[in-house]
């Protein structure tokens, strides 16, 4: 049996497949790749790919005890015992996929890791040096409809609490720039409200309601946070907008310090 051994892993290196869908009624968000497009691209680079990727944040080093085909995202053939150095992705997250499945028991139908609640993937936690993962059966062909990398503002749809914000503030939300902070992980991305839009935000008492990835919530102190794949299933902070599905990958890859603009679009 082929086994890979992790030699170096940055923080938040996790196993992710497409996601653990259908579990919201049990209080479990789907997790899955922060950048689905990049995840799919690494799979499509192989003739066949296992369903599960190693999602890494600052590069990865590993070795395999037998030769194996792998992609990150270009496909390569690696030799037995070769130390493989995967460079950091240009954004926040990169993906390493193998021609075979990772031999790890799925949990509730998925191999995705939710680090926040310690669920799934490799023992419910991030990977670290020394972890060993066996490779199982051959994967399946992966197709991807690679969209051209979009630029410009991140598109949003007004959120379920948008009407709680004054219209003048909503107008400014579509014009202002926000800075991606270093406070980012798979659960959420904290933004710096450079223009001070939400400076006078009052604490609102709302019924806790469903969260989806891409929701832009405003904390009681005016801090905007974009909720990501390992979000809490429900939450009680007001949500002004939700990033459209097609733009969430690009948002997830924005490095700390990047300025981001949101453009409201109609559903």
């Amino acid at each position, binding site marked *: 049996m082929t086994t890979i051994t992790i030699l170096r892993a940055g923080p938040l290196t996790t196993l992710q497949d497409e996601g653990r869908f259908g579990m919201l009624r*049990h209080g479990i968000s789907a997790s899955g790749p922060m950048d689905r497009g990049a995840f799919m691209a690494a799979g499509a680079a192989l003739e066949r790919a296992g369903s599960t990727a190693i999602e890494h944040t600052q590069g990865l080093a590993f070795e395999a005890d037998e030769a194996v085909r792998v992609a990150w995202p270009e496909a390569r053939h690696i030799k037995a015992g070769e130390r493989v150095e995967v460079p950091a992705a240009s954004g926040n997250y990169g993906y390493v996929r193998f021609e075979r499945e990772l031999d790890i028991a799925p949990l509730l139908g998925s191999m995705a890791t939710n680090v926040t609640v310690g*669920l799934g993937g490799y023992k419910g936690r991030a990977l670290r040096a020394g972890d060993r993962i066996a490779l199982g059966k051959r994967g399946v062909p992966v197709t991807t409809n690679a969209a051209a990398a979009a630029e410009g503002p991140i598109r949003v749809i*007004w959120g379920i609490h948008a009407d709680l914000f004054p219209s003048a503030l909503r107008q400014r939300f579509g014009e202002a720039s926000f800075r991606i902070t270093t406070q980012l992980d798979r659960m959420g991305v904290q933004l710096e409200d450079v223009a001070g839009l939400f400076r006078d935000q009052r604490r609102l008492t709302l019924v*806790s309601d*469903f969260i*989806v990835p891409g929701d832009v919530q405003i904390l009681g102190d005016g801090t905007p946070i974009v909720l990501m794949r390992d979000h809490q*299933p429900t939450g009680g902070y007001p949500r002004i907008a939700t990033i459209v599905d097609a733009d969430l990958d690009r948002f997830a890859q924005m490095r700390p310090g990047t300025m981001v603009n949101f453009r409201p679009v109609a559903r």
Partner: protein
Amino acid sequence: MNGDSGAGEDAAILPLGDRALLVRFAETLSEDANRRAIAFAARLDAYPPDGIEEVAPGLVSVLIRTAPSVDFWRLSGELRLLVGNEVAAPGRRHEIAVSFDGEDLAEAAALTGMPPGAFIARHNSKDLRVLATGFAPGFVYCGFHDNTLVVPRREKVRPMVPAGTVIFAAGQTAIAATPIRTGWHVIGRTAFRNFDPAQDPPTTLSAGDTVRFVSAR
């Protein structure tokens, strides 16, 4: 039962991004809105319209995740026709034994003006419903207590309480099924675990089920 809040047209159907929508029965938590949300989710489970990938009942709303090709306006029109005033039929009944020895028990009881013993007796005096599962895996909100047991949350959030912690605020009792942080009053603990990831489904309690808390011996 108490479907007396007017016609189904009062439900709001809101986009939640471009891959989900929310059918919200009220903007504040009420018995009626909660029962209608649970009933509507059950109806969608039984007769799912095309293009729906997931349905989940919340405190006052139903989340509907949709396939990429689904037109929001078409689906919301279809859902509008399905929204009724029906309220959920009672679910299964569960008895949950609690050791009422939480660090905030005395404080919570004092807020209600009752000594702890009377508070516990009142707390356990009636059947509650599982209002929703949310916030964390297997975390359930149970309600509603009567008005004498409505107290605000604590000022401070406890950074982490273990699975099985029984917490109390806002006329409800909730059970942590995983370690969580909470601003609710910690009133006790239970051996009952509502979340087991090795089982599918991973939770025992469902929205709409009946819960009766009893004092552990």
